Each structure stands twice: as C-alpha cells, then as structure tokens.
C-alpha cells in the first residue's frame, strides 16, 4: 500500500506520522532527537510504521472477529510484549557496549570490580524488565535512554554500595555507552520481535491460544504487506540536516499550520510550544499560514525550561503538571531564563514558598511568554489550537485557558492528545498533496 510520511525532527523529540491514500492516519512514532539526526528520523519513521501495522492488525482482526471481546486486551498485550522484546535486545546491546567501553576506561585497579558490578546491574535490569511492561505499569518515559537510564541509576547506586565500587565509575561507563546504543537502528529485528511477542501474548492470555490460527493468519498477512514509503516530507528544527532533497523539506511553520488544520479544520490560530521554540501561527480556512511569530534567540520559557525544572526536582516531565495543579496560591515568576530556572526554584523554596505554588507560577510564566508571542503574531482567533509537547502538560493548559479567557474572552481551545505530532502530520499531508495533487514522485535521496 502507498504510504505518505511526515517527519518532524524537533530539538528534543523526533516525530513521524504515516497516512494512507485516503489521508487516514495509520501510525505515529516518536523518539528522542539525538546526536545523530538520521538515526532519529529513521527510528521515528520505523516506530510510526510499526504503529501503523498495529493499526492494521486491529482493522484486520476486528473484521474477522477472531478476537471478539478481547481484541483490545490482546493488542495491548502484544504491543507491550513487543516493547519488552525491543527493550531486552537494547539492554543486551547496552551491556556489551558498556563492557567494551570499560576496557578503554582508565579506572586502574577498580576495573575488575566495576566489571563485576556491571554484570550484577544488568542481571537485575533484565530481571526487572517484564515488570516495566506489565499491564498498568507506569514508565517515566518511553525512550530507551530514559527508561534504561533511570533504572540503571537506581540499581547502579545500590549495586555500587553493596560491591564497594565507585558509583561515579558506573555512571561514567553508562554515559559513554548510551550514546552509541541509542544511535543504532534495530530495523531488522522488527519482524522477529513481533513474532516473539505474539508467542508471549498467547502465553499471557491463554484464553486466546485456542484461536491461534485465526489470529495468526491476518497478523502474518499484514506483516507481509508492503508499506511502501511513497513520499516523505521532512520538517522541524533539524530539517536541514535530513538527508532529503529540498523538494522534500517544508518549513516547520507551514507544517504546524497545516497539521493543526488537519486535526481541527476550524483552526485560525495555532500555538506550538516545543523544546526550544515557541511559535504562534495564524492560518486561514485552508490551513495556509497568514502570519507567524517565533521567540528570538533566547530560549526562555520553552519546553526545555520544564526539562530543567524536572531535572532539578528529580521528577519526570509528566509529573510536573499534576504537581502544579495542586497549587492554591499564585506566585509570580518573572525570569523564565531556562538555565536559571533551577536557581529561581531554589530561591523561592528557600523563601518558604510551596513547591506546587512555585510550579504553578512557572507554568504561568511560560504561558505568559507565549501570550506575548501570540499577541505579536496578531492575537488569538477562534478556533485556537495548542500543539507541541507542552500541550501535554495540564498545568500549562490550565494557565493558557485562564489567560486566553482574561485577554480574549471565551473561544474554542483545541488540544489533541496527539498534538505533539502536529508538525509531522502537516508534513505527511504535504507528502500526500505532492503525490496526489501535484503528481510528483519521490526523488532520489540527495
């Protein structure tokens, strides 16, 4: 089948969206943007395609009715098992890489001890893996770097203490190795992992095992289906570094505008807060950008700011919003310099302010900055669509709602749970248009 793909190479995350000829969204994929942009793009695309296959599994299985009643349970089991398979492979790779790097590290006499500790750490990590992907398990993030990292830190500290090895050494080996591991694409293993996951799923859900053949056939059929990458459009902050020709690149502004329009056709104003930029875009009824504004060189008040705060508080990004929601008092924060965020936080804490109140103040400060950029782009018009990673943050959304009401009155505010994919969706739509409307064919990669 023909697939149209948009890839949004952001400063913190890389997103991909796959759509079909009818402009239905087949799949979405996300990964952290890393030092190797090609890899980030490749992985995001691969994730989107895998996600697309799951979508197709669901379609196929629900038409055959093979799993009537337990379709959702089965598919989510399958997906978790698939993630587990992937995770285990990467974990094994990480261990091997750590060992290689241990060989070249200059830890002197400590080397042997660190080696043993490493063995122990990875034993424990592998043993703990299934739990991470158990039904209902909460993970700090879905990226290997983050999951493995936080597990490694926690387990490593304990192991180091028991073994009498310097924790710093363990950390150092990890920091060296993780870059290498996360820059590998495990493209060949997808099919293998899916099949292995299928076995696991049948084991986990014994009641489905009896229907094995009726389930297996459509899944294998879809695995064999060729998802042809008909046309790809790249966008985002790092688009210039994508190995695409100019024809395959669109400005992120246009993609965000169009993406928002595709999600909510009534969109007139778009606010996108990403990792290091904030964009305000005005679009017309066809999704065409009329004007836009971005923050200037200073990254104050962008998504990264929340990242620093989360680091400072030793929390996950997704925990910040809920904490701020508990606030009962407003605290005004004036500086949104991302780098000083930690200092400001400490300052406030030492003055005796409560964490949740400070958090609420910080979120409001970010949104205030966004409000200025919006005002600069021409104000907010109905309907207003909020996109980008920060739209996932409920406290930011709350602050935005309040400020919009205070300054512009009541209007429709659209937030899609998948809003982080807006740019990629815009890209995919451009890809679709290029082929379906302009009759273009993919050019050879530059």
């Amino acid at each position, binding site marked *: 089948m023909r697939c149209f793909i948009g890839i949004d190479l952001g400063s913190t995350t890389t997103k991909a969206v796959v759509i079909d000829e009818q402009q239905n969204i087949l799949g979405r994929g996300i990964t952290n943007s890393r030092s190797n*942009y090609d890899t980030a793009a490749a992985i995001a695309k691969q994730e989107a395609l895998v996600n697309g296959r799951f979508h197709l599994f669901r379609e196929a299985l629900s038409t055959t009715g093979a799993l009537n009643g337990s379709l959702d349970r089965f598919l989510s089991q399958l997906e978790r098992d698939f993630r587990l398979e992937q995770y285990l492979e990467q974990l094994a790779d990480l261990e091997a890489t750590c060992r290689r790097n241990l060989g070249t590290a200059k830890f002197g006499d400590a080397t042997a001890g660190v080696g043993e500790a490493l063995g122990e750490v990875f034993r424990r990590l592998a043993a703990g893996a299934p739990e991470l992907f158990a039904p209902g398990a909460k993970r700090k993030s879905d990226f290997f770097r983050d999951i493995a990292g936080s597990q490694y830190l926690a387990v490593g500290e304990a192991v180091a203490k028991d073994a009498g090895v310097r924790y710093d050494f363990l950390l150092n080996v990890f920091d060296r190795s993780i870059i290498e591991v996360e820059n590998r694409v495990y493209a060949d293993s997808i099919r293998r992992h899916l099949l292995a996951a299928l076995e696991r799923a049948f084991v986990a859900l014994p009641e489905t095992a009896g229907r094995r053949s009726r389930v297996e056939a459509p899944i294998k059929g879809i695995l064999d289906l060729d998802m042809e990458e008909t046309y790809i459009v790249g966008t985002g902050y790092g688009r210039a570094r994508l190995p695409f020709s100019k024809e395959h690149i669109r400005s992120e502004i246009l993609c965000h505008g169009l993406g928002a329009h595709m999600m909510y056709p009534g969109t007139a104003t778009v606010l996108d807060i990403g990792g290091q930029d904030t964009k305000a875009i005005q679009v017309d009824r066809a999704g065409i950008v009329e004007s836009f504004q971005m923050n200037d*060189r*200073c990254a104050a008040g962008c998504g990264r700011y929340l990242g620093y705060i989360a680091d400072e508080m030793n929390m996950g990004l997704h925990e910040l919003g809920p904490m701020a929601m508990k606030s009962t008092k407003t605290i005004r924060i004036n500086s949104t310099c991302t780098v000083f965020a930690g200092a400001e936080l400490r300052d406030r804490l030492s003055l005796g302010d409560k964490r949740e109140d400070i958090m609420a103040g910080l979120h409001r400060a970010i949104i205030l900055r966004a409000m200025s950029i919006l005002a600069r782009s021409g104000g907010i018009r109905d309907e207003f669509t909020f996109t980008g990673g920060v739209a996932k943050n409920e406290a930011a959304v709350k602050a935005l709602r309040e400020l919009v009401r205070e300054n512009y009155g009541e209007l429709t505010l659209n937030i899609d749970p998948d809003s982080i994919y807006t740019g990629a969706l815009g890209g995919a739509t451009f890809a679709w248009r290029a082929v379906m409307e302009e009759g273009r064919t993919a050019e050879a990669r530059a």
Partner: protein
Amino acid sequence: MKHTIGIDIGSGAVKTALFAFDANGKPRWLAKRCERIRRRDPMTLAQEGRDGVLADAGLGADDVAYVATTGEGENVKFATGHFYSMTTHARGGVFLEPGARAVVDIGALNGRAIYVDERGKVLSYKMTSQCASGSGQFLENIARYLGVAVEEIGPLSQTSQNPEKVSSICAVLAETDVINMVSRGIATPDILKGIHLSMASRIVKLLKVTGIKEGKALMTGGLALDTGLLAAIREEMANEKVGVEAVAHEDSIYAGAIGAALWGAFRHDRLSALERAAA
C-alpha cells in the same frame, strides 16, 4: 588562641574553613570541608560543615570567636556575621596566592572577576549578567551528555587539535549546537575545548573590564580545578595580550570560606575593641 569559621554557601557546594590566630593575629588554617549540595538543604549542610571542621580540629562550638558566612548564607542562624562573596573571595584568594591581583570566581551559574590590591581589598569587579550563557552548569550538562566525567574535562580538552567554537549565546541553544557538532562528527576534546575557549573569552573580558593590568589572576571556585579551562584562559590572555598570569591553587574552591573566616577575625577584633571602649 582565637578561632574563626568561614562558611561559603554556593549554588553547587557548601565549603567550610576553620582558622586559628596566634597572639600576633597570624592565621593558621586548621580544617576544611566541602560538600556538594546535590538537592539537599544548604542550611543543614552548613551546620554539618561547621560541626565537621570543629570535630576535625578537636574543638567545640564555644571555642569559636566568629562564624562568618558568605555566598547565599545570609540566613544562617548560628552565624555571627555575613560578608558578600566578592569581599571574601578577594581576601581568600590573596591568602592562597599572595601574588594575586585578581580573583576570578567561576561558579555554577555566575562568574565574577575581582580586581584586588595586595591586601585583598576589592578595587573593582565585574559579574556576568542575568543570562546564564557560558556558566559552569552548562559545561557540566554538556559533559554529562558527552559521557565525560567532571575530572576528565580538563585533560581531554587539552588534547584538542581543532577546537570547534560554540556560537550560540544562549546556553540552551548552545546545547543543541553541541549536539549538532556530535552529529557532524566533531571529536569530544574539540567540543570541550571550544566551550572552554568561549568561556575563557568571556572571563578574560570580565577581567579586562576590571582594569587589571599585571600580576596574577587566581581562579577560585569549583571550575578552578578544570585544567582545560585554565589552559584556555591562558591562551586567551596571550591572544589578547593581557599581561596577567592565570593561576589556580589546589584549595581554590575554599577561597570564599577562607576569606569569610579571615574577615570574621578582623570584625571580631574591631567589635571587641568597641566593646572595651564602651565599657
């Protein structure tokens, strides 16, 4: 024998120094402690620091004539008095390195260059602005990203052949710049050196603005231990034809605490004299 304690509460670490003074007022350094804050309460660490140095020297709290704080220590309850950090870094710097005519303190967030006379009097100073670009914190973040331990930064940076300059002014955007560099295949030492050079150019600029013309410039604060930065500063000084010699001291990180202890002794004497006069 009179004893004083100086406590320097920074944004990264709490440093404590204990001094004894003989009858002529000659100081002797008895004990020191340095504890990274790592998200703990600095006030508790200050207390632990004080107790720690007292234990090291076998003294009790009553043996101390003056506890002086500096840095962010304005609210320490058991302190006798507080001095501002440039006052203390200047004095402590000259104590560690009597030839120093400038003290350059590069902390986690702010950097300061202080021009001093031979007695440790602040003649002028310059601080980095509200914007955190080029701070110690930034270097630390990048090192983590690159998988380099803090102690390795210096040695690695010094092996660089083709340092790659970091262009962004903003520390956040500079981080992305660095990630870009990795993706372009720039070697780690070259990246580190590039950061060092851009920090060095800022520092030398601060230094020049203070008006210093000659003598030694002592690095204080945690980054003084970063030999790569020191080397970069030396290069930059040579390029800029500044006739100042950049030096570091193994106890550089204690400069603030030392200065506080020394000033504490001075104030103690002044106050006692005033009390005697009043009696």
